[in-house]
């Protein structure tokens, strides 16, 4: 008995001395005399894997159905019905996760982090809508994406914003996409999920700030239809560019446009391009001049953007937890140096509560050098990422300017293939029969 106690005490001491010790057996397991049976530890199992593939199947089927409804049946009512279904299934039942918009981050993290395993279902969620858009236009936006479907319900009194405001606000999604890819690929943060305005509503658990944000978005959606889709959605950038090269696309009229102008104000998203029939007044020298300006402007903006991005890399990396920890550790080691210098003098003033990060760092037994090495690796990645991010934004802005400089000529009312969500509202306004 005494020997047993000694052993217990010794093991306790040994355990107390080692810093990373966990779960020390201070008290032996009792030997029960009564007929007591020890309960089993309950560990609930996660959602079954096949359900993830069920989501992919539902996505595929709804993409097919919506595409057929938009291109063949040309029925706004049925598209609307599908959007209610998507809102119910992908929104409120699946609670907005996994979604194609967020899948951008998983894909970019998987590209740069070897240890991150990307499930096949997430790859499919990322790729399937893009492939459909490449052939049929943005039918995903029309009624499959729960965010679009949700905002679509609120578009009561849409006001035209004018092409200038549309283009300027149209830069925001590029910024959001660039930042999201930068933060995801450096393993810092998934900002699309974090600042997702609707997921809090789907789950009935939004924080007050996010609820305010989503409330403002939805209410402004009464006048500015689908504000998130048009001026924030990062996946929309990819869909916009794939849709421009789509094989087929929703057309306003099933036969020939008679320019009755009935559809002119039908689009809540300013995605109908009105005819510009004045023959291009551009003289050849002026065109050459414009092209020259663009040829200088594009590389300049790309480089300027890249330079700005690389200057900002420390600020951007500041939200990374590894960089934050290194900063705190550095501050503390400097503080200790100061303490040693004026030893004995008013040591009471330096009594400060340690942050949990520092406590955990001390408990983990990591060396200071390793913390700094990890942080400097992150900083390096952010430096390269900052160049690429800035360059990308510069390119987006110069393409926007270029797009506005180029002369246009069209005779009919047509949908803007990039911006059109294929919601099929305009179809009902066209008097022509197929």
């Amino acid at each position, binding site marked *: 008995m005494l020997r047993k106690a000694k052993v217990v005490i010794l093991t306790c001491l040994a355990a107390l001395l080692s810093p*990373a010790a*966990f*779960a*020390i*057996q*201070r*008290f032996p*397991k*009792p030997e*029960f*005399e*009564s007929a*007591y049976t*020890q*309960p*089993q*530890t*309950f*560990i609930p*199992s*996660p*959602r079954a*894997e096949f359900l*993830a593939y069920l989501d992919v199947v539902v996505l595929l089927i709804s993409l097919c159905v919506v595409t057929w409804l938009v291109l063949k049946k040309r029925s706004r009512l049925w598209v609307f019905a599908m959007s209610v279904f998507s809102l119910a299934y992908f929104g409120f039942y699946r*609670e907005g*996760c*996994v979604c194609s918009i*967020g899948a951008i*981050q998983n*894909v970019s993290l998987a590209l740069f982090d*070897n*240890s*991150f*395993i*990307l*499930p*096949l279902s997430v*790859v499919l969620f*990322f*790729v399937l809508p*893009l*492939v459909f858009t*490449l*052939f049929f236009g943005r039918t995903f936006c029309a009624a499959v994406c729960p965010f679009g479907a949700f905002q679509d319900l609120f578009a009561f009194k849409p006001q035209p914003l004018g092409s200038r405001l549309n283009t300027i606000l149209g830069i925001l999604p590029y910024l959001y996409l660039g930042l999201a890819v930068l933060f995801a690929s450096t393993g810092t*943060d*998934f900002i699309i999920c*974090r600042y997702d305005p609707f997921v809090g509503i789907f*789950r009935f*658990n939004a924080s007050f700030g996010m609820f305010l944000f989503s409330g403002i978005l939805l209410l402004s959606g009464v006048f500015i239809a689908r504000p998130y889709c048009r001026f924030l959605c990062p996946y929309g950038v990819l869909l916009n560019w794939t849709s421009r*090269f789509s*094989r087929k696309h929703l057309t306003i009229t099933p036969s020939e446009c008679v320019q009755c102008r009935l559809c002119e104000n039908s689009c809540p998203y300013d995605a109908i391009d009105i005819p510009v029939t004045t023959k291009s007044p551009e003289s050849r020298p002026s065109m050459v001049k414009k092209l020259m300006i663009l040829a200088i402007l594009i590389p300049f903006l790309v480089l300027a953007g890249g330079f700005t991005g690389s200057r900002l890399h420390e600020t951007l990396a500041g939200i990374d*937890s590894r960089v934050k920890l290194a900063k705190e550790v550095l501050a503390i080691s400097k503080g200790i140096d100061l303490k040693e210098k004026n030893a004995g003098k008013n040591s009471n003033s330096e009594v400060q509560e340690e*942050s*949990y*990060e520092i*406590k*955990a*760092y001390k*408990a*983990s037994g990591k060396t200071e050098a390793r913390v700094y090495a990890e942080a400097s690796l992150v900083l390096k990645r952010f430096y390269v990422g900052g160049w690429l991010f800035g360059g990308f934004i510069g390119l987006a802005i110069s393409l926007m300017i270029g797009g506005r400089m180029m002369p246009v000529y069209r005779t009919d009312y047509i949908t803007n293939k990039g911006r059109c969500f294929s919601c099929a509202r305009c179809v009902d306004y066209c008097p022509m029969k197929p």
Partner: protein
Amino acid sequence: MAVFWKSGCEGNDNIKKMPNRREFLNTLMRGGILAALGLLSGGLVFRSRDGNSCFYGFDCSRCSKSESCNLPAALEARQMVWQLDPAKCIQCGRCATNCVMSPSAVKCTHAFAMCGYCDLCGGYFKPGTKTLDTAAEHQLCPTNALKRKFVEDPFFEYTIDEQLCIGCGKCVKGCGAFGNGSLQLQVHHDRCKNCNQCSIARNCPSQAWTRVPANKPSLLKSFGKDRLSETSRKGEMNA
């Protein structure tokens, strides 16, 4: 292809049958984007399918991350879920407040096999409690989720009411400091939404959160046992 170009530019009679220059360029771009998407998704699937994702070819001695690596198990499971490692957890209390679920998907889990069935339970009573009874003012748990039941002299059984537990970790801290450490925080996957990026993991001060294979979703610790099993797993991989 040259014919496509000509027909578009010259505007001959075949213009309606033959695609014009713009359409041809569109087709070209479409093909390009399709190929890029195919390469991207194919590469991603291929990489995570047969272990090409390991940069060092599973030679763990060359890799600095081998302590926290769960790649072999992940490749086997194909699906990952979030879990926190109780050995790294410092019970800061953020699990209770940072989860997208409220109350949190993190709950206290009792590894009964480790429990000492103490009368003076460090996880149940506030420090300095004199009378060991079930009075609310003596309890550490803010929600009365930890239940105390007499078994036989001098042993008491402690169970967790999961409906009430908010995952604050106060009892875990007490049990770890004064007891055997049988109370441990674990994600309960019936509540966990398995978010893309766990919002607790982002705020965890001790980086205790990892993605674990879905077929082994628990990281409950016992006395030194699983440390042993972990090293043996690595040994096998090196061999």
